[in-house]
C-alpha cells in the first residue's frame, strides 16, 4: 500500500525554492495561516492583508508554505507556528517554500531592448 505521502512530499520533487522574508514592525503582520500538521495539511499562507507589513514587503505570496520561523524549522503544526510568530516581537523572519507552477516557462526577454 502506498503510504499517504505527506503533502509536502506529494508535491515532491517539483521545482521549488525557498524564499526568506524578514518582516519588521511587529504584529499584526497581516497574513493568514491555514492548515498545519494538526489537520494533516501543509501549513500555507492563504491570505495577505492589503496594506499590511507582509504585503508591503512584497515577498510573501499566497500559497507559500511555511518552512521556518525565526530560524526555527517548523514541524508543521499550526499551533507551533502561531506560537513562534506570536513569540516574535519587532522582527519576524520567515522562510517559505514557493513552488513553481508548471506553467509554460516564461521566455527571458532581453530586458535591454
Amino acid at each position: 500500500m502506498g503510504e499517504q505521502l505527506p503533502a509536502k512530499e506529494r508535491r515532491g520533487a517539483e521545482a521549488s525554492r525557498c524564499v526568506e522574508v524578514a518582516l519588521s514592525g511587529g504584529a499584526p503582520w497581516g497574513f493568514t495561516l491555514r492548515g498545519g500538521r494538526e489537520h494533516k495539511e501543509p501549513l500555507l499562507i492563504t491570505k495577505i492583508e492589503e496594506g499590511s507589513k507582509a504585503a508591503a514587503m512584497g515577498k510573501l505570496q499566497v500559497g507559500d508554505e511555511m518552512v521556518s520561523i525565526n530560524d526555527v524549522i517548523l514541524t508543521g503544526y499550526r499551533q507551533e507556528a502561531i506560537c513562534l510568530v506570536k513569540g516574535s516581537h519587532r522582527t519576524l523572519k520567515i522562510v517559505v517554500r514557493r513552488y513553481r507552477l508548471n506553467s509554460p516557462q516564461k521566455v527571458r526577454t532581453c530586458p535591454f531592448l
Partner: protein
Amino acid sequence: MMSQMRSTRTSQVQSHTVSQVQSHTVSQVEDTVHYNHHNYESELEEYMMQEEDWDRDLLLDPAWEKQQRKTFTAWCNSHLRKAGTQIENIEDDFRNGLKLMLLLEVISGERLPKPDQGKMRFHKIANVNKALDYISSKGVKLVSIGAEEIVDGNLKMTLGMIWTIILRFAIHDISVEETSAKEGLLLWCQRKTAPYKNVNVQNFHTSWKDGLALCALIHRHRPDLIDYSKLQKDDALYNLNLALEVAEKELDIPKMLDAEDIVNTPKPDQRAIMTYVSCFYHAFAGAEQAEMAANRICKILAVNQDNEKAMGEYERLASELLQWIQRTIPWLENLSPEKTMQAMQQKLEDFRDYRRLHKPPKTQEKCQLEINFNTLQTKLRISNRPAFMPSEGKMVSDIAGAWQRLEHAEKGYEEWLLNELRRLERLDHLAEKFRQKALIYEVWSHGKDYMLKQKDYESASLTEVRALLRKHEAFESDLAAHQDRVEQIAAIAQELNELDYHNAVEINARCQKICDQWDNFGTLTQKRREALERAEKLQETIDQLFLEFAKRTTPFNNWMEGAMEDLQDMFIVHSIEEIQSLIAAHEQFKSTLPEADSERQAILGIVNEVQKITQTYSISSTESNPYTMISCKEISAKWDKMKQLIPQRNAALQEELVRQQSNERLRRQFASQANIIGPWIQRKMEEIAQSSIEISGTLEDQMNQLKQLEEVTINYKPNVDKLEGDHQLIQEALIFDNKHTNYTMEHIRVGWEMLLTTIARTINEIETQILTRDAKGITQQQMNEFRSSFSHFDRGEAEFARIMNLVDPNNTGLVSFQSFISFMTRETADTDTADQVVASFRILAGDKPYILVEELRRELPSEQAEYCIASMPPYRGPEAIPGALDYASFSTALYGESDL
C-alpha cells in the same frame, strides 16, 4: 672793512711844494687862489708918482739906486739862473734885449717871439720892443719907457722897467684876503708877523730896518731855521744878515739886499724891500699857497683818495660780495638730490647754518655796501664830483640783482630742501612699504609655481581630480586676492621711480621679478586649470563610460545569468506540451542571441573606449569600475559559458521530450485502471453511507451488511495492487499528475483505506452503539438521531480530523459522549464561520477583545469552559490584563485558520 676804515681814519696829508714845507694838519678852509684881474693902472700911477717925486730930485736917490740895483739884479738873476744865465750889470746886460726877453720867458713861463739875431741897434731895439710888447700885452701900460732908452742903457729907465716887470709879475699877482699887489703883500707881511710882538710892519721901508720882520717872516714859516727867541731888536745888522743868509741858503732867495745899506739908510728903498719881500712871499705864500693848494689838493686828493678808496673799497666789497654770491648761488642752485634722509637733513642743517651764521654778516655787508655807496655818492655830489660809477658788473643794480638771485635761489633751495626731505621721507616710507609687501608676496608665492607645475592630476581619479579642481579654484581666488597686492607693489615701484628713488634699480629688478613671476603664475594657473579641466573631462568621460558599462552590464549580466540559469534550469515537466513549450522557449531564446551579442559587443566597446582614452591621454586608468563588480572578463566568460550551455540544453530538452512521451503512455495506462477502481470504491462508500443513513433494521443487521461489504472489498484488493504497480512505474518515472484521471493513487489508496476503515469504523460504531445501547440504555431512536447528526456533519476527512481534534484533543481515540455532545451543541449552533464564533465570544466577553476565565466559567458549561480556558492563548493585545484570553485566535484556529 669800510667801517674799519672809518674808525681808523687819520689822514696824513703830505703837501708837496718846491721848497720843503713842514707838514701840519689842515684845519682851515682852503684858500681859493684865484686869478685877480687887478687894475694895473693905479699901481703904475703910484709908481709914476714915486717917479715924479724922484724926478723932482732929478735924480734917483743914490741909496735907493744902489739898493735897487743890487736887489733887482739879484732878483733877475734868481730867475735867469733857471735859464742858465746871469746878469752882472743891470743897465748893460739888458741892452740888447735878449736877456730881457729871456727873463720874461722865465718869469712868465710863456714863449716870446723869436729875438732878432743881430747886433745892430735896430735888432736890439726890436728885441727890447718885443719884450716891452710882451709886458704891455700883459696889461701893463708902459708910460715913458721906451726901447731906445733901454738899448741906450738908461739906468733909471732900466730900473724902472725892471721894477715894472717885478711889480707886474711878482707883486701884482699877490692876493691876500682880497687885497692884492702891494697892499696885499703888506697885509701878508702884517698877518704873518702878527704873532711877533716886536715886529710891526707898516711899510716897506722903515719897518724892515731892524731885520726882525724878515726873521719873523722866516721863522713864521720855518721855525727850524731861526731861533727867533734869541734875536734882539737892536741887533739889526745881525738880524738882517741872518735873514739874508738863511734865506739864501735855505730858501733859495739870493741876497738882494745889503744889510749895511739898510741899516745905514734912514729910509731904505721900498722897491728893493718890496722886491726882496715879494720873493719871501712867493717862497712862503707860494709855498703856503702851494701848501694850501697842496693841502687842498691833498684834501681833495684825500677826499679823492678817500672816495677812491671808498670806491675801491666798494668795488672790493662788491667784488667780494658778488663772488660770495657767485659761490653761494651755485650751492643753492645745486639741486642734486641726496639718497638718504640723513644726507638731506645734513643739507638742511648746512642751510640753516648758512641762514643763521653765514648769511647775516653778508646781509650786513650788503647793507653796508649800500650805505657806503650812498654816502659816497652824497659826498661826491656835495663835493661836486661826478657820481660814482661802479665798474661793470658791480653796480648797485648788479649787486641788487645778484642779491635777488641769491634770495631767489635761497627760497628755491629751501623749498627744494623741504620738498626733497618730504620726497625722501616718502621714498623711504614707500621703499619700506615696497619691501614689506614684496616680502609678504614672496613668502606667499614661495613654492607656488612648483605646486602649479605638478602633474598630480595625471594619476588621479575623478573625485581626486574634482578635489584638485576645488583646490585650484581656491587657489585662483587666492590669486585674485593677491592681484591687488601685486598691483599695489607695482604701483609703489612706479611711484618710487617717479619720485626718483636712488635705489630704483634694485626696486625695479625685484618688482620686475615679482611681476614676471605673477604673470607666470597667471599662465601656470590657467594651464593647470585647463589641464585639470581636461583631466576632469576625461575622468568624467571615463566615469560616464564606466557608468554606462555598469548600467548595461548589470542587466546584461543578469540576463546572462538568468539565461544561464534558465539554460541550466532543472526543469520538471510532466507533459509533452510542457516540454514542447520549453523547447519552443529555448528556440526563441536562441533567436535573441544576436541582439544579445551586439549588446555584448557594445559593452566591450565601452571598455575599449576607456582604454583608448587612458592610453591616448596617458592618464592612469582606474582599473576598477566603481559602479560594478562585473568585469569585462566575467562578461566574456559568462557569454562563452552560456554559449556552451545552449547545445547542452538542446540535448536535455530533446531527451526530456522523449521521456515525456513515454510518461504519457504510462499515464494513460494508469488512468484507465484508476477510472475503474475509483468509482468502484466510491460506490462502495456510498453503500456504506447509505446504510448508515438508513436507520431501518437492527444494529446487528447493519453489522452483517457491513461484514459482507468488507469481504467484497477485500476481494477486490488485487486490482488495487495492480494499480499500485502501475503507480509505481509512474512514480518511478516521476510522473506526478495525470489528467487522464481524476484519481490519484493516493485517492485510490486513501479511498481504499477509507473504505476499509469506514467499514471497520462503522462496524465499530455499531458495536459501540450496541455497547452503549447496552450500557447506557440509549434508545435506538436516540442513536439514530445522533448518527444522522453525525452524518450531517460529515464533511470529509479534513473536517473529520478537525472535529476529532476538538472532541478528542488528546488523540486517545476515544470520544467521550459529553464532549461530543458539547461539540454538537456548539456545532449546531449557527456558528459556521470563525468570525461568527468570534462574535459569539465577544458577546460573552462583553465586547472586550479578550475574555476572562471567570466569564468562560460563567457562560459556558464547565467542561467547555475548562476546555476553552485550557486551549485559549493568553490575550496580548491592547488593554490586556492578566488572565485575559484570546478568543479570536482561538476561534480562527478552530477553523483551521490563524490570522497573524
